[in-house]
């Protein structure tokens, strides 16, 4: 078997209590297979379902028992059919026995591979473990689990258990749950089993490791405490970003009849003199030039090699420092881990003693590292203790790279305490903020931490692999909107928002936010995407500052706004106005917006919604100018005025006047029948009129 090839048996619970979460299980299993189809095409996968009405497995034929367990697929190389099967898991009607299912899975692996391929055989159990396992013929359940676990060890199998217990199916029998949890712990203690408990669908997607990488050390050697005292350590990467795959460029030049066409594109680089572009310089004739003031100093790589900094391979301790001296934001890169040389009991002890001492004293170690001989630089970093709470796993250190003096830019910022009092929160505001920070808690005591990085999938990659699968079936498929479960990563969970509605509302009421009247940039920015000739110049003027603000409403294009909601009426309006799939949208948007403004003004209580109404009106006005619909706006505002006067809402008229809302004049939109002067005096007039 290839070095990295893996054999995996998925053991899935499809009983009635699992139905709610099966869609997520289908997704996470498909993702696993989709990645295998790209990165490890020769991996072999089998699928065992339990809780099925029918019984279909070899053990039941051979020895009897093992009911309600169906082998959906024998261990075979991954292919599209498997993916298809996993995307359409059956919903079955029996409460299954997970231990029997594990045994069936193990049996499949043993029959296929025997004792070979140690460490490359994996079982993956997904269940809620809410139902009791059968009593064994002899001994206790615990004994039985122990025997199975040791058999697993002997065969060199690993197991991942994902125990999915969403909050809604918690009415289960507590005693059985506890018993099962105990049995699962036996697995963890006696075999290479990792158990993850999952309470949310989002976590389920991240609970199963879909990336199979065999770790490689970046350093093996001494951690030098002093020239006379070394500890043997191995250093690995602890985190490493999984990048978006780089796709190959496609060439359509090959004739369609050519079955062996690669369709690949070669990128060729040619080097030419800037002064004389006809002269081609061969790549080996190039030389690196470094800037020194206005000059460029050529240095050949040989020259550079001869004089460059060449430290010897080593990891040396510089000393210990207070943990509080190393701020979290100084960590520069992805993280490494220092473990004591495996099997070297003395080294493990030494690392353990240091880690425990450092943890107790809140200290960190500063080390200087040169991972390889010939590496042209040194790395100074910090070792933080990583004391293990699993008795099988030795203590270790996390290693983070620290910046050098050159890497830190000392920009000065105003002190918060020196800010003018208008920018300082008052006591009431501070209390509202305290409440918000306390209540919007993602790590409630007694509940699982929400969006823990260790169990949160990468939404972009999830989306990519799903789309790839879709595209392989239908080459015209459009990119589907982001899955609801993944949306919980990119947006706040509506449920949490709902639970804390009053706290959030309270926070919003306490603070006032308004656009800087002198700088109408942001509203203009909202309309930026529109193809409007007249607006561009003004925009260029407004955007003179070097910070290019990001587009305020860069909404995913898939979400097509069809109505104006309560939350973001202005954004909804902009979105509708910019829809180009039908000319009707503009008039619809204007009509909706008018209704919205009316609604806001009419339902206002002592002017609490005036600001929002003003924002809407401003947006409406802008939109009407851009779409050359001045009459729509002018008629509306006159109507609105009349309405306000009648309904005793004069304060709104005054509010508008104080914010300089005028009619749209001829100079702004050619179709308008109002002159500039009329537009300006209109409010004054209408006020005098009553």
């Amino acid at each position, binding site marked *: 078997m290839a070095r990295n090839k893996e054999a995996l048996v998925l053991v899935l619970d499809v009983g009635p209590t699992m139905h709610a979460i099966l869609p997520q299980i289908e997704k996470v299993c498909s993702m696993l297979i989709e990645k295998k189809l790209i990165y490890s095409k020769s991996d072999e996968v089998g699928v065992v379902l339990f809780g099925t009405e029918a019984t279909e497995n070899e053990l039941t034929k051979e020895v009897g028992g093992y009911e309600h367990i169906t082998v959906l697929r024998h261990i075979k190389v991954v292919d599209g059919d498997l993916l298809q099967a996993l995307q359409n898991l059956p919903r079955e009607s029996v409460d299954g026995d997970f231990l029997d299912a594990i045994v069936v899975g193990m049996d499949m692996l043993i029959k296929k591979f025997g004792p070979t391929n140690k460490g490359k055989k994996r079982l993956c159990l997904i269940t809620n473990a809410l139902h009791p396992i059968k009593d064994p013929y002899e001994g206790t359940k615990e004994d039985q689990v122990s025997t199975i676990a040791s058999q697993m060890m002997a065969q060199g199998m690993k197991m991942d258990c994902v125990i999915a217990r969403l909050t809604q199916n918690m009415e289960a029998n507590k005693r059985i749950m506890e018993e099962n949890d105990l049995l699962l712990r036996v697995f963890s203690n006696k075999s290479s089993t990792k158990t993850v408990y999952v309470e949310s669908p989002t976590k389920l997607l991240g609970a199963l490791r879909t990336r199979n990488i065999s770790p490689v050390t970046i350093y093996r050697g001494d951690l030098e405490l002093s020239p006379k005292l070394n500890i043997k350590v191995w250093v690995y990467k602890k985190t490493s970003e999984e990048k978006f795959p780089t796709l190959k460029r496609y060439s359509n030049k090959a004739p369609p009849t050519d079955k062996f066409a690669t369709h690949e594109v070669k990128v060729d680089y040619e080097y030419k003199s800037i002064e004389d572009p006809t002269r081609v310089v061969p790549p080996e004739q190039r030389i690196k030039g470094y800037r020194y003031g206005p000059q460029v100093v050529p240095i050949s790589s040989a020259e550079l090699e001869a004089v460059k900094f060449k430290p010897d391979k080593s990891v040396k301790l510089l000393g210990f*420092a207070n943990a509080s001296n190393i701020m979290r934001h100084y960590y520069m890169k992805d993280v490494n881990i220092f473990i004591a040389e495996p099997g070297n009991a003395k080294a493990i002890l030494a690392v353990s003693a240091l880690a425990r001492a450092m943890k*107790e004293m809140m200290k960190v170690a500063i080390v200087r590292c040169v991972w390889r001989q010939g590496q042209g630089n040194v790395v100074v970093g910090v070792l933080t203790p990583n004391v293990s709470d699993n008795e099988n796993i030795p203590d270790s250190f996390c290693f983070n790279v620290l910046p050098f003096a050159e890497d830190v830019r000392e920009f000065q910022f105003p002190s918060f305490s020196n800010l003018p009092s208008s920018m300082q929160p008052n006591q009431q505001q501070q209390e509202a903020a305290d409440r918000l920070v306390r209540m*919007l808690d993602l790590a409630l005591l007694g509940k699982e931490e929400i969006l823990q990085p260790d169990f949160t999938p990468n939404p972009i990659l999830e989306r990519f692999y799903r789309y790839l699968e879709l595209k392989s079936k239908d080459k015209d498929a459009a990119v589907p909107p982001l899955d609801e479960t993944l949306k919980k990563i990119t947006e706040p969970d509506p449920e949490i928002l709902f639970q804390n509605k009053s706290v959030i509302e309270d926070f919003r009421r306490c603070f006032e936010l308004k656009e800087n009247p002198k700088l109408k940039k942001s509203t203009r920015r909202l309309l930026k995407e529109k193809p409007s000739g007249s607006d561009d110049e003004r925009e260029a003027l407004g955007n003179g500052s070097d910070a290019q603000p990001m587009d305020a409403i860069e909404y995913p294009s898939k979400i097509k706004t069809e109505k104006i909601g309560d939350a973001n009426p202005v954004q909804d309006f902009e979105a509708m106005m910019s829809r180009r799939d039908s000319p009707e949208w503009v008039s619809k948007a204007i009509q909706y917006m008018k209704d919205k403004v009316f609604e806001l003004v009419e339902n206002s209580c002592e002017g609490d919604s005036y600001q929002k109404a003003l924002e809407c009106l401003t947006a409406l006005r802008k939109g009407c100018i851009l779409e050359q619909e001045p009459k729509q706006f002018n008629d509306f505002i006159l109507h609105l005025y009349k309405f306000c006067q009648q309904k005793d809402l004069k304060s709104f008229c005054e509010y508008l006047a104080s914010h300089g809302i005028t009619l749209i004049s001829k100079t702004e939109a050619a179709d308008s029948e109002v002159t500039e002067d009329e537009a300006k005096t209109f409010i004054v007039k209408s006020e005098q009129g009553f």
Partner: protein
Amino acid sequence: MREKKNLQDLNGVYVFNVAEREDLDRPTARLIKEFECIEEKFDNDIGSKYGILSGSRDNSLYSALWVAQALLRKGSAKTADKRMLLLTNEDDPFGSIKGITKMDMMRTTLQRAKDAQDLGISIELLPLSRRNDEFNVSLFYAELLGLEGDELTQFQALAGERLKDMKEQLRKRIFKKRKIRRIKFIIANGMSIDVDTYALIRPTNPGTITWLDSVTNLPIKSDRSFICTDTGALLQEPAQRFQSYKSEDVMLSVDELSEIKRIASGHLRLLGFKPLSCLKDYHNLRPSTFIFPSDEEVIGSTCIFVALHRSMLQLNRFALAFGGSSNNPHLVALVAQNEIISGGGQVEPPGMHMIYLPYSDDIRHVEEVHADANTIAPRATDDQTKTASALVRRIDLKDFSVCQFSNPALQRHYAVLQALALDEDEMPEIKDETLPDQEGMARPGIVKLLEEFKLSVFGENYEDNDLTIGGTMTEASRKRKAIADNATKEYSKYDWLELADTGKLKDLTMAELKYYLTANNLSVTGAKAALISRILTHMGK
């Protein structure tokens, strides 16, 4: 001064320059080189007089300011940061004259300085130490620089350090404060504030590389062309990409790919708060980004930011948010940082640091790879931990700050570059500040603690540390050891020198050749010819 050299033809001012360079220009290698010998040149050519003397109508300080200001007129105030550095050891330049002339000279000089400052030129004073007494800023320069009250006392206190600071910064690149971009921080539906993002910590590289033609030393540019591998035809950059999947090619357009990545609006969206203990040391991928509120467009942003900042600090929580950049948005932790001031300077600005968090598949579980379910990992006993604690306490880097080391590789690179640019013969030696303090480590107190730790953890026979404890050796290393042992045994059976001399090495088998290589710790990879040549090279033939 004997010599005068300046555009305005003023007495007592000398504008130093070299050929092929305007008076105000980017520094060139030649300028630096010649400036290094200014002392010698000063005595010979430029000559000097002392200060401003009574009886003379020349006000050299005034003239100097004028000349400097005239030089700085070049370039607009918007694009350039204009500074005058005044280096002097005379705290009372008009001390030797009296009466009306003095008043007059002081007034005009101060006016000249004020004019310069009004033009956006900042004047900085670097007082040089005097042999006998301290440099008294309040005599004259306080007024020139516009220092008042607290600022004055602060300046006095730091006067001595300023030159030292400048010397220390000489080889450090100076960055102008510049924000990356302004983003919206969406706190709740319909409530978003403006924050500016800054890169406070980024790895510094040795500067951009300009590729040159090694024959002419002229810059070259690269041209990229796309060639179809099937037909050899020249293409425009194609808009289609493909990924091989289920043994076929799945095509995706560039637009579709960017659509996939567009899952956030490019803003920062608050998701909730967590205790700081949830932020583990391994939750890191990239350098952090600093965020600071801005009221420029949305008034009230700062107030909300400050309130949240205070609450988070007080409750020991960080905010979890999604966003960061529109093409690679991430889950981020926003960690509030309180302002830290030390020695009159801001060491840590107040604000929040955005820490990019890994996803589940970015985290590797290396510890578990080597864990053995049947053996309990050794843990240090309390005694062993105690000896370690003593060691940790003793080898203490007091007041360690992350920026105390400069990057030796970078310093070397700069030094080499300068040496080559200035045609210096000798390569300068750069001190590697990152090496451990050998002397300190050799202090008897520390050596004693090290010995105690060694004894408590490793026992009597520390020297055997290299040998892994029997039975726990990995399979691979046992195999490797067996091969090595066998090789040394077999190695002695051949007369290698003679075989080599008679050219009979090629008659041996690969396995036999490998005995020599393994016994001599050489690589055993490659074809037979490669092995033989490696053996011969090793023998020195």
